[in-house]
């Protein structure tokens, strides 16, 4: 690790020289955070000197922003931090192998949304409640209750123990890239499934643009529709894990959704991955997309061709209600870490109010999970795109998310069922199978997969 540490030290020094002001303010903040009795003595040893922390997160905007603030933490605590931010697929693959082989190379890791069930369910992260309850380890003004309940809910196991502190909550909502075409056809942003079908029919191929384009990870983008029709993934997670993919409601939902894809999607719609969807929307080559907020807010970006014509709404509601998905990522401590206390110090610092506020104010970061900061005056206007305020959509959706329909996500065998749902929707939309046949096959194969995982149903 030596050589790498040396290289990192050089660039860190350069950064430090440039950010001296930030440093002083941040050191003060970090110092305030450091617990009573553990403040750095005047000219004495710093609390974590000699400790090396290995930290990794995928390269989200938040994680990349945090890179610039890490020197503050090192300065205040004396710890050395090796901080890496590989891209999403690389991070997930590597960390999954690392965790599943019982490694101890990392002290703080991001718990990725799609792996929550496995990484937490298999006990590869430690519960954080002992740290939260200990006033020596968590100062009272850090306020763990300040985090949106809808965001922390995903990181709790069935008995309610918390395993990660969420740094972002990506909500499932809807966006229209060319709302002007909606208006021309006399439509508004649809709020119900039938409204969506109606609007799609009206704006499809207007100006040569296909109307409907979700991303092809259907185990995420289809579930709100499934639940909106009254269907579900498991019968009653986490107690009853019997998949219920072949109920009449599930079949109806699959049929409806696949029909939207087939009739109103671009050519090859089932091959559009998340990055393609965002690029296509930004270029104004597709219109309406039920999608994650992290993608839809980019429609207002500088290099987006639709910055002036986009509009947004909550996830539409089906006959049985509104069930927008919430995708959270959070900081956790892997079970194999040898520096758990120091790791917790990093987490409390990285998710502290001063640091998050600095990000909001100085860098315009807007995807935060602290209620107090969302309500603060500094945050006002940060989540506004093309004049539309997304904060209300954000808060309402997260509040819904706390109701418990997202529990399917925390089941560690969900990836297997996720894949079956992908396959089923593709089969229906490409005309290979009818909705009944496809969902029945998905059900059978899911049962087989669960059996293979040793689950007794």
């Amino acid at each position, binding site marked *: 690790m030596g050589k790498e540490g040396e290289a990192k030290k050089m660039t860190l020094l350069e950064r430090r020289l440039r950010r001296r002001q930030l440093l002083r303010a941040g050191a003060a903040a970090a110092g305030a955070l450091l617990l009573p009795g553990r403040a750095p003595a005047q000219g004495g040893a710093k609390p974590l000197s000699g400790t090396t922390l290995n930290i990794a997160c995928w390269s989200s905007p938040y994680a990349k922003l945090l890179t610039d603030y890490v020197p503050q933490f090192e300065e205040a605590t004396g710890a050395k931090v090796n901080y890496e931010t590989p891209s999403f697929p690389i991070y997930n693959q590597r960390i*999954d192998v690392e965790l599943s082989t019982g490694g101890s190379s990392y002290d703080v890791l991001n718990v990725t949304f799609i792996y929550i069930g496995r990484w937490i369910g298999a006990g590869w992260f430690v519960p954080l409640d002992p740290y939260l309850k200990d006033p020596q380890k968590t100062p009272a003004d850090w306020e763990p209750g300040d985090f949106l309940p809808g965001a922390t809910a995903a990181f709790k196991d069935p008995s309610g123990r918390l395993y990660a502190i969420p740094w972002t909550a990506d909500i499932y909502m809807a966006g229209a890239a060319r709302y002007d075409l909606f208006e021309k056809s006399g439509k508004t942003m649809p709020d119900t499934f039938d409204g969506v079908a109606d609007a799609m029919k009206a704006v499809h191929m207007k100006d040569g643009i296909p109307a409907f384009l979700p991303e092809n990870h259907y185990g995420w983008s289809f579930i709100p529709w499934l639940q909106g029709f009254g269907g579900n993934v498991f019968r009653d997670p986490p107690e009853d894990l019997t998949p219920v993919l072949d109920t009449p409601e599930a079949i109806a939902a699959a049929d409806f959704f696949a029909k939207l894809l087939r009739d109103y999607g671009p050519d090859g719609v089932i091959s559009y991955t998340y990055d393609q969807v965002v690029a296509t929307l930004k270029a104004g080559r597709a219109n309406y997309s039920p999608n994650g907020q992290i993608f839809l807010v980019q429609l207002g970006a500088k290099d987006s061709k639709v910055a002036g014509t986009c509009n947004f709404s909550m996830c539409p509601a089906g006959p049985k209600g509104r069930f927008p998905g919430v995708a959270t990522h959070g900081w956790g401590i892997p079970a194999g870490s040898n520096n758990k206390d120091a790791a917790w110090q990093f987490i409390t610092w990285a998710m502290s109010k001063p640091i998050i506020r600095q990000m909001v104010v100085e860098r315009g970061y807007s995807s935060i999970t602290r209620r107090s900061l969302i309500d603060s005056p500094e945050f006002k206007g940060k989540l506004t795109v093309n004049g539309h305020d997304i904060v209300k959509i954000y808060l309402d959706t997260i509040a819904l998310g706390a109701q418990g329909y997202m529990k399917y996500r925390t089941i560690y065998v969900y*990836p297997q069922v996720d894949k079956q749902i992908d396959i089923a929707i593709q089969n229906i939309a490409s005309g290979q199978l009818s909705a009944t046949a*496809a969902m029945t096959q998905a059900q059978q194969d899911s049962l087989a997969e669960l059996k293979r995982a040793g689950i007794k149903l």
Partner: protein
Amino acid sequence: MLAVQPSSIKRAAENRRPARTALPNWRREQRRAFTFGLLPALLVLVAITLGPTIYLIVTSLTPLDPVHPHSAADFSDPIGNYRALMADRRFLNSLEVQLKLSAATVVLQLAVGLGVALLLNAGSRFLEAVRTAFILPMVLPPIVVAVVWKVIFTPDVSPMHRALTAIGLPVHSLIANPDTALGAIAVADTWEWFPFTMLMVLASLQMIPAEPIDAARIDGAGRLALFRYILFPYIRPTLVVAGLFRLIDSIKAFPLIYVLTNGGPGTATEVTNYYAFVESFNFSYWGYGSAIATLMVAGVLLLSWFIGRLGVEAERDD
């Protein structure tokens, strides 16, 4: 026994030294020298592949799933995974898809590689320069190749689709259509790997001694006859070896499927290797994934042995 008397033998006879090969130790010396050459490679290979192979086979006998660590030593049902595989519809489907893809890609890559090699064999300076350019597809990282072809196969932004529409032959998305998805992957794969065959065949063609070719030309042999009776027999073993390698690599095909179709639409392009990856890495069924991999290797080994026998008939034994 040599049919001709090289000058060296004449020389030896004149000097009244017995021919070296007549010395009793010669054979043994030779054997030892050859063993000395072969052994390092064998030892290294054994060192780095024996362990993992044993690990693979042993894990395939357990329901190993890292989420349940105790499953690592669970030998209660050793052939359980294999039994489940035989009844696994998705696995059997993957075998069929794999066979189709392998057959298509190997045949195409041999044909295209051979064709291009013959074209470039004419021995002009210009063609030699061009030859380096032709290996470009193979030189790009497979991930980049997959990503580039992803865009080419997306009708909305694809220059290929645009061009086809412009000349009046609009084509729908090839990778979203279960009937054409595998073919699309085969085309992308052939584009990427035909330089492999081309390189090997070219090298082989360059090693053909000039005399038989000149003699045949003088005798008035046309290009086709030249190819059929002189060139082809000479390069046939190279084609077999290249084909064998392409077959083995086609079993391992991954980036194209991962980026272009993810095994879809549905499971239309889910080859066995991809299925093993999904089971092992996405679902953590290491035991099951190992069983699939073991079957794959066994199958390819058998196939290779069989093909090797075919090629051996043409071996240039003295």
